[in-house]
């Protein structure tokens, strides 16, 4: 067990580093970013032209003048933050503050300035005093570059986290509470009308894209209901900005509990519906397998009541594969439902990811990706350990 844990944690560590490297490298390739944004802003507003000092200042703030490998280590573990051991290598070049310029003169007299080499190197000593995150590895994700400029990414995540947790927590809980009994009943009454109906619904639920569901929900419960003069649900956002009147219910104050609840209802229902399909199918399959086992037949042969056979002998054993799904639940709780949150404009982490990606706020994107990978890995580890606890036949080795 200990050897297994050590090996798995080491594996997790390697995968985490690889994921961090990949995501950082990937996003490094993207054009745009703070400097380009600043350039575009200045150009569009028609104010004074941006000069080299401005660019340098922005590059300094976001570490863009440090060479990529060191920028990565500074991002990952907050190192190097100055000369090594306090004094070694104070004049070692670690980046480039101003690129060198070479004047290319063409035969016809025209010329072009080409960036070549480096005119002003950034040394380790100059890194000292510069703000640096303590490192993503230690839970400091740096500052947001676009969405909330200069505010820590962790602040941004903290403000969005409750929305995602409530949405995902409620929908996963509801889906389990509804989906598991449906799955059990379907398996017990295999090929009954109930089973066929539920299988078809689950089949449709698992194959359809969630955004189509979301839009149909808005269409029916917000748009068409409102047009028909029936009670309707607000179509998006987590909190309203102004009061609105719903037939039969009356005026709903923006920001009141009722307002929040009404807005919560639709995304949760859509997510629940999608998840029910998965859970019920899973439980049905696992239950059917267990019902064919010898010990179930033995129990029936001994004259145990059917109800007891199902609940005591079959159900408990059919829930063993259940723990495998927990790996995904942890990451889903945190990661949120990207698409559903987008459709309903729900200010959770999934929506934050889409916003950050669309606006090139890399620190936020990388933080979310990194957290997601780590949570997935932790989920898998917990699943493996839980498996040995619920099923004594399985040993970790």
């Amino acid at each position: 067990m200990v050897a297994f844990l050590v090996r798995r944690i080491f594996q997790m560590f390697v995968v985490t580093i690889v994921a961090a490297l990949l995501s950082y490298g990937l996003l490094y390739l993207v054009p745009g970013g703070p400097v380009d944004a600043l350039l575009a802003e200045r150009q569009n507003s028609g104010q004074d032209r941006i000069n080299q000092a401005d660019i340098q200042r922005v590059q300094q703030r976001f570490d863009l003048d440090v060479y990529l490998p060191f920028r990565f280590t500074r991002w990952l573990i907050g190192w190097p933050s100055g000369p090594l051991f306090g004094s070694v290598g104070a004049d070692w070049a670690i980046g480039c503050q101003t690129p060198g310029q070479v004047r290319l003169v063409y035969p016809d007299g025209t010329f072009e300035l080409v960036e070549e080499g480096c005119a002003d190197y950034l040394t380790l000593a100059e890194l000292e005093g510069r703000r640096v995150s303590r490192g993503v590895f230690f839970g400091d994700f740096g500052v947001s570059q676009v969405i909330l400029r200069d505010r820590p990414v962790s602040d941004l995540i903290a403000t969005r986290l409750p929305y995602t947790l409530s949405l995902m927590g409620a929908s996963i809980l509801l889906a389990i509470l509804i989906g598991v009994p449906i799955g059990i009943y379907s398996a017990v009454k295999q090929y009954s009308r109930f089973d066929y109906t539920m299988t078809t619904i689950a089949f449709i639920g698992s194959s359809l894209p969630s955004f189509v569901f979301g839009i149909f929900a808005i269409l029916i419960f917000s748009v068409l209901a409102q047009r028909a003069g029936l009670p309707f649900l607000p179509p998006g956002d987590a909190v309203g900005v102004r009061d609105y009147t719903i037939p039969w219910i009356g005026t709903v104050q923006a920001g009141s509990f009722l307002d929040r609840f009404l807005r919560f209802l639709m995304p949760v229902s859509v997510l629940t519906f999608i998840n029910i399909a998965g859970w019920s199918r899973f439980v049905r399959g696992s239950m059917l397998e267990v019902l064919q086992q010898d010990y179930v037949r033995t129990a029936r042969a001994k004259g145990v009541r059917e109800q007891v056979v199902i609940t005591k002998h079959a159900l408990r054993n059919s829930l063993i594969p259940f723990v495998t799904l927990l790996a995904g639940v942890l990451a889903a709780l945190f990661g949120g439902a990207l698409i559903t949150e987008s459709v309903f404009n729900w200010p959770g982490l999934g929506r934050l990811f889409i916003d950050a990606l669309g606006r090139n706020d890399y620190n936020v994107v990388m933080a979310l990706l990194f957290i997601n990978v780590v949570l997935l890995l932790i989920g898998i580890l917990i699943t493996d350990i839980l498996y040995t606890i619920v099923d004594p036949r399985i040993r970790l080795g």
Partner: protein
Amino acid sequence: MTATTTVVPGDETSRAPSETQWQIVLRRFRKHKIAVVSLVLLVMLVIISALAPVIAPFPRDAPSLQTRFVPPFTVDSQGNFRLFGTDHLGRDFYTRLLYASRVSLGTAFFATLIASTIGILLGMIAGYFGGWVDIVISRTLEVVATFPTLLLLLIMSSILVQNINSIPIPDFFANFLAWVFAVSPREARIIFAVILVLSLFGWTGTARLMRGMVLSVRENVYIESSRALGASNVRILGRHVFPNALPPMIVDFTLGINATLVAESALSFLGFGIQDPTPTWGNMLSFAQSYMFQHPWMPLIPSLPILFCSIAINYIGDGLRDALDPRQRG
């Protein structure tokens, strides 16, 4: 009970010589009525989208201020009949839907084709040769499978689409894709980038499935006898292992098309996939969502094809699974 079980196989063997393997599959598939109907409708949709440039009544991207938000089945102020109405820029929905079908279905098909090819090859190599090759491929597979796919899809797609001009795609290939999708070469480059991204993450399931199939197939005696006769690995893989591992792959491919179709729609819907003015069901739906409060019919136009294809492809996959399963009789 015993009487019937002995009669049925006898029946089967008396009929067997006159039927090839594929005829049996076809006969079984035809029994699955919903799957047959789905297949026929889907093939019709493919034919219609292939004919898009011929049957489209209007230019694809021609905006017109006079004809914005014309409802379906009405005649607009210019006297043109609009079968599915017009969008927020006054572009004809029916025309754009025809082209979008071509782009969406084509993208899904090619991405799944690439992903399945990669998956089948790697799975076959891993399963057949075993040893360190298997370890390397299986570990890679596990690592790729741990990544949060949707997040990476979005990131990769956003990077590639933004850097579309720096991706080396040969001109003749871009022109070829442009011809396939009935779009301009520039649009074809973006479509190609999206196909790449989608196929990059789509192969893991296929590889795992194929590896498992090969592991069981290679234990058969006919593989051993083939090797005893001096057949090369390539010949064994191509003539014996691949055909015998194929049936589940066909089902996997079919369902893979649906998964890719949904993924592409989601990417385009969120704005990180194929970009307007190239129409896809996903990006058309994303615009329709913004105007659904004034024009509730708008989201129906692009979402109904998505719903239809999803359900149809799933039923076809279901029918194929039943038809290809050797344990089923009849």
